[in-house]
């Protein structure tokens, strides 16, 4: 079988638009994949869908697709997990978009459903890292979505789909599916799924493979970050993949950029669990084979997990943050005093637990509060944060921070208040057999 070329169109829901358009125009792609679904996004989407305040899918994907459509070759398949909590809803919106465009006519659209396991997750399923069960969450539970493998998306492609919309499919599986279909690999064989899953793992964060999130000082120099090109992979029939980026784009792809992306969120490199294969990353080979051209080989699997990971969305109340800034001589000391004043009032005046308010000095050590920096900062921001189910407590924190203007230390400025409702994500596991991913051909 011929080499299969697959590109990354986005690495998260808020990613840039034009790198995908450039890849579509110059990349001669067989498939273009848009990863748009962070762990907590689906919980937020389900909450939106449930309150009918908005769609359960990522509407921004429609703009992404509209941008690449004029450049897409007829053979290029498009896959995305932007369906979030409502893949069929997004698939219908995509059909409308395609039918209104000359390059969209005749393209068939499929949705993959069945990752939503809210109805079948056992109440006694243990939440990872805690003594709690799903049942203990009560009405705080907003969503439960299993990370499904590539199989259902492969069936959609085999049925003739040109565009496949999914919800909570494993990020790497989204890329693995079209590669595996092209090369005739069996989604039930972890050994055959190892190579395409590894390719997907490397492409899933898009620009992070091509020099995004890499530049540092004089030793990690990345040219043209403002015009960063997104990566593609040429996957051969033996599973060896050559990674590159579109000609003329900024960025860099090297052994080091690939190595950082390969391992950076992997607990045990010898056993990286994905729905399609438990990958052994320790023996992977990374070789520079040309300018901005890196070969990755020797993907291998040690079976696949019997259970699928489930992302569980939990209503988590509000996160309130208030901050105020200080500059110049004694700035850190005055900011410290501001924190003390709010904490003292929280306890003495309002009779609340001072431990519920987190206090940080931004510009000093807020990112590593256990750390004692040398020297004094030129500017520092006193930041107080509170997680609460009580909206009145959130408002109280905001009032206390704002009152520092006229009741706190000298020279405070730029008070900033924010409040957002949050959905926490916890994990559990479900037996593979209990999850039933299905394809709905929408056009």
């Amino acid at each position: 079988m011929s080499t299969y070329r697959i590109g990354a169109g986005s690495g998260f829901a808020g990613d840039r638009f034009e790198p995908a358009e450039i890849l579509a125009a110059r990349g001669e792609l067989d498939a273009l994949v848009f990863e748009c679904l962070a762990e907590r996004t689906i919980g937020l989407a389900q909450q939106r869908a449930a309150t009918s305040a908005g769609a359960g899918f990522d509407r921004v994907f429609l703009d992404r697709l509209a941008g690449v459509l004029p450049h897409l070759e007829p053979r290029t398949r498009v896959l995305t997990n932007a369906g979030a909590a409502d893949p069929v809803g997004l698939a219908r919106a995509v059909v409308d978009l395609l039918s209104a465009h000359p390059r969209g006519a005749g393209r068939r659209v499929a949705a993959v459903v069945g990752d939503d396991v809210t109805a079948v997750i056992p109440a006694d399923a243990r939440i990872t890292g805690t003594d709690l069960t799903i049942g203990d969450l009560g009405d705080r539970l907003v969503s439960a979505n299993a990370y499904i493998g590539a199989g259902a998306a492969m069936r959609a492609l085999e049925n003739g789909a040109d565009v496949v919309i999914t919800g909570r499919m494993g990020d790497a599986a989204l890329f693995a599916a079209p590669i595996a279909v092209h090369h005739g690999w069996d989604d039930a064989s972890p050994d055959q799924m190892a190579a395409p899953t590894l390719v997907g793992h490397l492409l899933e964060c898009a620009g992070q493979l091509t020099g995004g999130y890499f530049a540092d000082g004089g030793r990690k120099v990345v040219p043209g970050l403002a015009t960063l090109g997104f990566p593609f992979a040429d996957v051969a029939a033996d599973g060896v993949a050559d990674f590159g980026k579109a000609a003329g784009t900024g960025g860099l792809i090297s052994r080091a950029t690939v190595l950082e992306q390969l391992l950076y969120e992997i607990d045990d490199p010898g056993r990286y669990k994905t729905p399609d294969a438990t990958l052994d990353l320790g023996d992977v080979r990374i070789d520079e084979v040309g300018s901005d051209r890196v070969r990755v080989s020797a993907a291998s699997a040690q079976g696949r997990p019997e259970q699928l990971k489930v992302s569980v969305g939990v209503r988590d109340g509000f996160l309130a943050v208030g901050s105020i800034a200080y500059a110049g001589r004694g700035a850190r000391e005055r900011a410290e005093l501001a924190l003390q004043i709010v904490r003292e009032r929280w306890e003495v005046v309002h009779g609340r637990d001072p431990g519920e308010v987190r206090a940080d000095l931004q510009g000093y050590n807020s990112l590593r509060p256990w750390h004692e920096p040398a020297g004094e900062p030129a500017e520092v921001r006193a930041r107080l944060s509170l997680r609460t189910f009580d909206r009145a407590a959130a408002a109280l924190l905001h009032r206390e921070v704002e009152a520092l203007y006229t009741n706190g230390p000298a020279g405070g400025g730029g008070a900033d208040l924010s409040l957002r409702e949050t959905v926490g994500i916890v994990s559990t596991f479900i037996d593979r057999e209990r999850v039933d991913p299905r394809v709905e051909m929408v056009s």
Partner: protein
Amino acid sequence: MTTLGDLAHARAGDKGDTSILVVAPYELDDYARVDDVLRAERVAVHFGVDASHVTIHPVPRLGAFTVVVRARLDGGVTRSRAADPHGKTLSGHLLDLVVEG
């Protein structure tokens, strides 16, 4: 004073309340030196956590390590009240680790 950042580069990721960092020496010749620096006890002190919260996986064939630090993210990205709930900035902190000798 030599720090880990003079020898190696790093990127931080997260899973729940666990920070996972990849560290790789720029030159493979420095692999053993980086290996010497990355002792769980030292890394734990540097991150202000108990030594039992740190696991280091050497990946010699790739010339890299993963450093796993548990319970340092104020509950993890969806629960944390911190200014950097992902702990993405911890790669810079790790590279501040002093290399002795």
